[in-house]
Structures are given as structure tokens and as C-alpha cells.
């Protein structure tokens, strides 16, 4: 009796992929001479957003646990400045990257430890630390810019096989790692569970607070990675670079179908949402629209996505409850049906 009732369960990632394809087709048709359909242009859309995508991956983890990190923009900015300062002083790449990663990890740890050890909600903690990281970027100060010729810049602006931007490759590598963590690891399982019911996880002998701290450290490290990627793709960074970047990252995660109430969501959705935002940004730019139009559209899309996803979440839950209740009423005798 249940076979007839079983609905086709389409995951968010599939819906988003369809939207992505529709968006590409639309831009391809609108933008003259089919420029948008050229593989190099299409793949190039990702270079604008790869660093955002890299930050959106751990942000998905944080939002899965019903938390949020508002400090990411300036965290990225601060780590990038550490990198830049170290690179400028020493000229050697690897130690500089390590310094950036270490600073990112430290900043993330500061967020994580406060969130884990106090009762203060993460948005307030990270709002405060956002100011602190902003202060750090101002303390280091200045504009750090690079031109082509620098080895790492050339590398980060380069491509693989002459067509796939290295930024996209980095994003895909991290996506695969995070996707494995999300779907196959104990960490992923716990993250979803913490988002639904933190107590339930603690009463399973799992140190939920430690996990919360850990994902903030991951966030910090990935922000540092994103900071270096940003320098590679955007040439320069200054004290105001991080302003409102948190919104972009959170927007990607929300667009990817991760519920801000915690528990449900996926890294896959976040990845596709990153691509969508990239297409939207570059597409609008190729249509000759300013970044502000993009801002406005993203704001509207974000609001719609928030409403749509929460609604569908509630509907889904209600439907499965009703189905269960109907099932209960029908089968007063406990017979096995499936």
C-alpha cells in the first residue's frame, strides 16, 4: 500500500543543477554572439567565486549545526594580509602560506572556543570577532597588490589543459574532500545530528562542543586558503575587502539548500550554488550591468531561497508525519507492509 504513495524524492542538488543549466541557457541566449556558451567563458565564471565557494564549504558545516560565522570576510582578509606581509618580507611562498593557514586556524579557534565554552550564540560571537579581525586588518593596514610575474599569482590565474581554471580545480578538490566528510564520515553524521538536537549527540558520548570548535577552526583554515586564492584572482587586497563578504558566503550556503535552523543541507548543494552565483555574476557583467544589479538580484534571490527552502522543509516534514499518522490509523494491527 505504500508503493503508490511513495513520491519521487528529488534532492536539492538536482533542483539547483537544473536551475544552473537554465541560467546558463538564458544568459547564452541573451548575451550576443553566444559568447556565454564558449567553454572558456563558461568555465571562467568560476574564477570570480571560487574563493567564496571554498569558504562556503566549512560555512555549510557551521550552518548545519545551527550556527553561523559572520567574521569570515575579515578573517579571510586578515589571513591574506599575514600571507602578504610574510611573503613580502621573506619572498618564499611555502612558509608564507603556512603562516596564513596558522593565523586562520588561530582566528578560527578563537571563534570556536568562545562558541563552545560560553552560552553565547555563534552569530554574536562572530559579530564581535568580526570587529576584532577587522581591527587586525587595519593594524597591518595598507593595500597589498600583486602583478603578473609573481609565481603564485601566475599559478592561481593559470589553468589546467589550457581551459580549466586552476581556481576551479582547487574548488573541486576541496569540494570532494568536504563532500566525503559530509556524506561518509562520522563528523558529517554528527554535524547533522548536532543541528537537530545537540543534547541527543552529547548523550551519545560525543563531545559536541569539541566538534563545534573544530569546524570553526576548519572555517578559519579555509578562509586563509580563500585569502590566498583571492590574492591570486583579484590582484590586490585592502582593509575594506572583507566588508559584506560574509553575506556572499552565507548566501551561497543558503542558496545551496542548507537550512539555517540546522540539521538539513548538503555540501553538494553548496557547490552547485557556488557555480550558480558565479554564472549570475559573470553573466550580468557581460550584459553590461554593474555589480550593484548583482547585489540587488542576489538579495532578492536570497530572500526567496530562504522562504522557499524553509517552507519546503516544513511541508516535507508535515507530509511525512501525515503519512505516518495515516499509516497508524489504517493498520491498527501491526502487520509488515514493506
Amino acid at each position, binding site marked *: 500500500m505504500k508503493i503508490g504513495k511513495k513520491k519521487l524524492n528529488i534532492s536539492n542538488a538536482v533542483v539547483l543543477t537544473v536551475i544552473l543549466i537554465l541560467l546558463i541557457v538564458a544568459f547564452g541566449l541573451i548575451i550576443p554572439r553566444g559568447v556565454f556558451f564558449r567553454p572558456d567563458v563558461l568555465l571562467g565564471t568560476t574564477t570570480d567565486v571560487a574563493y567564496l565557494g571554498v569558504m562556503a564549504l566549512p560555512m555549510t558545516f557551521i550552518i548545519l549545526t545551527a550556527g553561523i560565522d559572520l567574521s569570515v570576510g575579515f578573517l579571510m582578509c586578515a589571513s591574506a594580509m599575514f600571507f602578504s606581509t610574510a611573503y613580502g618580507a621573506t619572498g618564499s611562498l611555502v612558509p608564507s602560506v603556512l603562516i596564513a593557514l596558522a593565523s586562520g586556524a588561530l582566528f578560527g579557534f578563537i571563534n570556536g572556543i568562545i562558541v563552545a565554552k560560553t552560552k553565547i550564540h555563534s552569530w554574536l560571537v562572530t559579530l564581535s570577532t568580526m570587529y576584532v579581525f577587522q581591527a587586525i586588518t587595519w593594524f597591518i593596514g595598507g593595500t597589498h597588490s600583486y602583478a603578473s610575474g609573481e609565481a603564485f599569482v601566475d599559478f592561481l590565474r593559470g589553468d589546467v589543459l589550457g581551459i580549466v581554471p586552476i581556481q576551479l580545480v582547487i574548488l573541486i578538490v576541496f569540494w570532494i574532500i568536504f563532500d566525503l566528510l559530509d556524506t561518509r564520515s562520522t563528523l558529517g553524521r554528527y554535524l547533522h545530528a548536532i543541528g*537537530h538536537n545537540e543534547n*541527543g549527540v552529547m548523550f551519545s558520548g560525543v563531545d559536541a562542543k569539541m566538534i563545534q570548535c573544530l569546524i570553526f577552526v576548519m572555517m578559519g583554515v579555509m578562509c586563509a586558503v580563500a585569502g590566498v586564492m583571492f590574492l591570486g584572482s583579484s590582484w590586490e587586497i585592502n582593509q575594506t575587502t572583507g566588508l559584506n563578504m560574509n553575506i556572499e558566503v552565507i548566501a551561497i550556503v543558503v542558496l545551496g539548500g542548507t537550512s539555517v535552523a540546522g540539521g538539513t543541507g548538503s555540501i553538494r548543494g553548496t557547490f552547485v550554488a557556488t557555480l550558480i552565483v558565479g554564472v549570475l555574476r559573470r553573466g550580468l557583467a557581460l550584459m553590461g550591468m554593474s555589480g550593484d544589479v548583482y547585489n540587488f538580484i542576489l538579495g532578492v534571490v536570497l530572500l526567496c531561497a530562504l522562504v522557499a527552502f524553509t517552507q519546503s522543509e516544513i511541508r516535507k516534514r508535515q507530509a511525512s508525519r501525515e503519512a505516518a499518522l495515516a499509516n497508524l490509523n489504517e493498520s491498527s494491527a501491526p502487520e509488515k507492509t514493506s
Partner: protein
Amino acid sequence: MSTILKLEHIYKSFPGVKALDDMQIELERGEIHAVCGENGAGKSTLMKVITGVYKADSGNMYLNGEKITVNEPNDAYSKGIAIIFQETSLFKDLTVLENMFMGHEPVKKIGPISNIDYAAEEAKATEIFNFLGISGISFDDKIDNLGVAAKQMVEIAKALTYDAEVLIFDEPTAALTEKEVRSLFETIQRLKERGVSMLYISHRMEEIFEITDRVTVIRDGSFIKTAKTSEVTEQQLIAWMVGREMVGELYCKADVEIGEPVLEVKGLTKPGLLENIDFTLRRGEILGFAGLAGAGRTESAECICGLMKRYTADIKLFGKPFKAKNYRHAIDNGLVYLSEDRKKYGLVVPMSVKENLTMSILYQISKGTFIDFKTENQIVEKYMKDLSVKAPDKDFVVENLSGGNQQKVLLAKALCAKPKILILDEPTRGVDVGAKAEIYKIIKQLSEQGISIIMISSEMPELLGMSDRVVVIKEGRKVGEVERKDFSQEKVLGMAL
């Protein structure tokens, strides 16, 4: 006497549960009317329907013979029906006075503007406090700074600000001391003299016989019987509550040879909660923990399992000194705790049966950080079959299961951690009689396998039916220990109260 409140044909369903099934109740003017039934029988749901917190799916409600509809709490209050909740519904950051009049503050017009009339509030509150004989609470006290009994008094005073004709008490004595219970009863008598009609929900038989005029028994969401309290016996009441046919055969006690001590606890102390609790658990034994809610039974268990910190105790596990660093440490040493509140602490209800079942052993079945899905599926299937969890498949969401099956998932979750000592906290709360019997059978099998069990329960028949020995805890202290041969309800209750 005339009927003041009457409910008939009330139906209310929740996901997976028919909470009220053709329920009815009749309250006469000026009487104290007990409502009794087991945990999960539907008492609280019924009260929430009466006060408009829940909306009934269907049914009729009459007040003074007139049909009324109560869609929200305000409807009930405005008609003079008020409730004193089990869990306090007060705002902890606000003052006593603000709490008492929240949502229905008296106002005074100054010109066109309505101002809250603090003078009128104080006058009325003083009158109510005098009537209830409350002293020692100031109107300016923040609720957060009051004790349990004081909060309860404020709750009662708050209910009286609605000029209630019908008052509902939902387990008012659960957290009170003997002395406080006495003064509460005096208050209730005074209210009765004033002509207030009261519904009184309680687990404690002697209270029901002491103060109520009539009693209505409900079971599994259905109406069973209403009778004059003076005309029934305790045995009759219990029989109605559990369902006659189940008594006797419900509890199955294994005949197990009890072995060496496995858990010895000496001087368990946690400031403010527990004081110097000693007990010993032996191999294959079922040790009951009796006491009132809040007496310190759950807290003792949580301390031993490392779920609560900052306590002192001398604990020996299998003869070796042991102090759980955290709950994981306890699980690794074969000590597993099953929470009384399965939705809040036990399970992650929006997740699947599978994900819940393996939550506490995930690290054992993963390679590195990655879960071994094949092993996981095998374990889940085994335990679902062993405990006959009735779910369509292992990916079914737990919140859509019935209470009994949720409890079985919780048990399975504990069992797959391979416990040697199992602490069950209210293992049959909110579970129907059929599932109860199954759970008792599982407990029996476990003790046959040599697993030692501590069973914390507020249901006396269950405790006496299943345990080898009962430890009684009262106000954070161990007040007695009763062997199976000396078991009697009166004896254990006498110590616990």
C-alpha cells in the same frame, strides 16, 4: 450540585499517536476532581485541550451548560478556566507582580491613553496573597531568585488573578517537600470553600484519596470511569489505570543468579543536588531507584556516567576504581545510560532509525573517520530485528514512530554499545501497555544475559515488579534500601515521600 464544566467526544491526534480518543469528563461546581492514569494516558493533553493550548480535532465543551469553544489560552482565561502547570510557565527575568498579571494587566485610562494600573495590581495581588496566606515573597522579587515552592505559589496566585472558577492542577506536588505539600492542600481547601472547582492531576494515590471528591480514570487516551473517591479502593483504581487483564502478567522477572558486585558507589555527593549516596549493583541484578521527580535519581546516574561534572564519589567498576571523564569513557567501560527524556536527550528524532541507532558507537564502526556503511547496516538490521522495532525500513525518521517504537530504538542504541551495566531512566514513559510488556521482556532477556541493570522509575508497580532490590532516594539522599522479599508499595512510598 450542578455541572460546571463538561467535555464530550474529544479527539486529538499527534503524529504517530492518538492522544485522546473519545474522551469525556464532567466537573461539578465546587468539587475537587482527580484525573488519574498512567504516564502517557493523555492527562496532560486533556488539560491542554481544556485550556486552549492544544486545539481538539473534534468534540464538544460546555461551561455552565453553554457550549463554548476554546481556541487559545486567552479564551479559557476569559471564561474563568486557569491552569497551574507542571513545569513552571513563569518568566524568570520578570518580577512576581509582572508575572501574575502578564497578558491581562489592569489598565487605567488617563485621558485617551491606557496605563497599566500598578496600584490596582498590587491591591489585587495583596488580596490574593492574603487569601493564600503567602508571606516572604515580595512583589518585586525576580522569579529567578525564588525556590520551587515559591514559584508554585506564584503560579497559583497568577491563576487566581483570572478570577478562575475552574482551576486545574497538573501534578502540583511533584517537586514539593512534605511540608510544602501540606500548605498546598490547605490552600486547595480554602479555594474549595470559596466555590472554586478543581481538576487535580496526580500520580500519588494517597493524595487523591485525601483531598479529592471524585475521580476519573483515563487510559491510552480513552475515558475509563468516573467514580466517587470514597467509594473506590486503591486497588480498583490501579486496575482501571493499567487495564485489568494486564495486571500480573505484565511484569516478567527473570530468575537469574546474582553474581559479584560490578558497580560500587560510595559517598556520591554533588553540592545542592546529591548527598552521600551509597549503593552496590551486582552482576545480573536489576536495581530499582525509587523516589520523586527531582529527588536526585537521574542526577546520580548522570554523575556516574560522566554526563554531569563536579561531583565527588568513590566509585568501583568491576572492582577497579573508576571515574568517568566523560560519557564516552563510560560507554567504553560498558556503562550505558538511557535518558528519561528520549526526545530531548535520548534520540535525534528528525534523523533516521539507522543514524540514531549507531550514534554512540559510530567511532567503533568507522575506518579512520569514514563510516563503514556495510557493518553499520548489519548492526542496525540485527538490532531492529532483535528488539522488533516496527519501522518500514532503517531509513525511517524516528519522530514518525510511535512512542513504544521510539523507546525500542533508544534501547537498541544502548544495546549496540554492548553494555555490561545499563541504566534505564523511566524506560516505559509515554509508551502504551503493549509496548511496555515488550520492553519488560527485553529487560528480562538482558538480565538473563548477565547484564546488570539500574532501573529508575516513578511507576511503583513497574519498579516492584521488575527489581531485585530498590534503593529509595529523597531530596538528594539515600533514605533506604528494600529487598525483593520485603517489597510493598506502602513501604517504598513511605520512604520516598
